[in-house]
C-alpha cells in the first residue's frame, strides 16, 4: 500500500503543524484503518448528529414486498427509498385533495396569474423555455407551472433534493438570460411563477 495514503491507526499520526484545512485534507486522503474504527471508543450519544428521521417497523406480505423490490431494482433505487417516494407522492396528492396544501395551484390562482401574465409576451417565453435542456425545462415547469414543492420535483425527476435544487437554480438563471435578450427579463421568482403558471 502506498505509504503516503495509508489509513491512520491513531489520531497521533496526524501531523500537528497542519492548518484546519490541511488536517481535513490529510484525513480525507488517508482515511482511518479498520483497527482504529474497531478499537477506539465511539463518541458519546450526545456528541452524535441527531437523526431527523425515526425508524419504524412495518410488516409487509411477501408478495407486496417482492413487487416493490422488483420495481425498485428496475429503477435502480433502493426499495426503501422507493417506498418513501411513494408515500410522499401519495401524501402530496391526498393533502392537495383535502385542501391542506396551499402550495398547490387553485383555479382562483390561475385566473389572477393569467391577468398578471397578460403583460408578458408568451411567445418569447415559450421560445426561451424551448432553448433550455429538457431536464431544466422540466424542473422549471414542475416547480412553477404545476406548483410542486422542490421535494416533489426531485422525486418526479428521480434526483436528490440537492441536485434538483441546482438544476432549478441554473434553469432560472438561463431562462432569465434568454429573456434578457428579448428585453423581457423577469425580476424575480414570483414573476417567473406568475407567467409560467399561466402559460
Amino acid at each position, binding site marked *: 500500500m502506498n505509504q503516503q495514503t495509508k489509513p491512520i491507526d491513531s489520531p497521533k499520526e496526524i501531523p500537528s503543524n497542519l492548518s484546519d*484545512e490541511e488536517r481535513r485534507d490529510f484525513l480525507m486522503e488517508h482515511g482511518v484503518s479498520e483497527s482504529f*474504527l474497531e478499537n477506539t471508543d465511539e*463518541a458519546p450519544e450526545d456528541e452524535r448528529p441527531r437523526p431527523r428521521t425515526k425508524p419504524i417497523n412495518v410488516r409487509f406480505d411477501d408478495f407486496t414486498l417482492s413487487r416493490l423490490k422488483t420495481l425498485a431494482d428496475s429503477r435502480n433505487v433502493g426499495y426503501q427509498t422507493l417506498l418513501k417516494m411513494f408515500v410522499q407522492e401519495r401524501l402530496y396528492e391526498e393533502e392537495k385533495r383535502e385542501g391542506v396544501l396551499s402550495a398547490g395551484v387553485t383555479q382562483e390562482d390561475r385566473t389572477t396569474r393569467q391577468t398578471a401574465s397578460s403583460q408578458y409576451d408568451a411567445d418569447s417565453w415559450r421560445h426561451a423555455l424551448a432553448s433550455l435542456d429538457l431536464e431544466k425545462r422540466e424542473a422549471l415547469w414542475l416547480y412553477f407551472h404545476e406548483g410542486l414543492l422542490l421535494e416533489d420535483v426531485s422525486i418526479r425527476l428521480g434526483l436528490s*433534493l440537492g441536485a434538483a435544487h441546482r438544476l432549478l437554480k441554473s434553469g432560472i438563471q438561463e431562462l432569465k438570460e434568454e429573456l434578457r435578450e428579448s428585453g423581457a427579463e423577469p425580476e424575480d421568482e414570483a414573476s417567473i411563477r406568475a407567467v409560467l403558471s399561466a402559460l
Partner: protein
Amino acid sequence: MQQRDEFEWDDNEDKLAARHGVDRYEAEEAATDPRASVKRIGADRVGNPEYVFVGKTDDGRILFMVGVLKRDRIWRIGSARDAKFQEKRAYRKRSR
C-alpha cells in the same frame, strides 16, 4: 419531538459534489445513520471537537466524512467521499 441538528458546509457544496460525487443530503443521511461510527479525532484550531464518520446513506452508499461540532449543535461537515475498503469493512462488521 426530538430537536434536530443543523448542518453547514466548509466547502462550497457544489464543489464537494463535483469532487466526490456526494451531495449534502447524502452526507447528512450518512452522518445521522444510527449505525454510523462517529469517532473523536481531535479538535480544530478554535477548539471545536473534530470527528470522523463512517455511515451509510438511505440508498446504501457508505461514506467517510470529516466534521466539526460547533456551538449550538451545528455540525460543520468538512468533506465527504465514498468510504475506502477498510472503512467499509469495519462498518459492515459493526452493523451486522
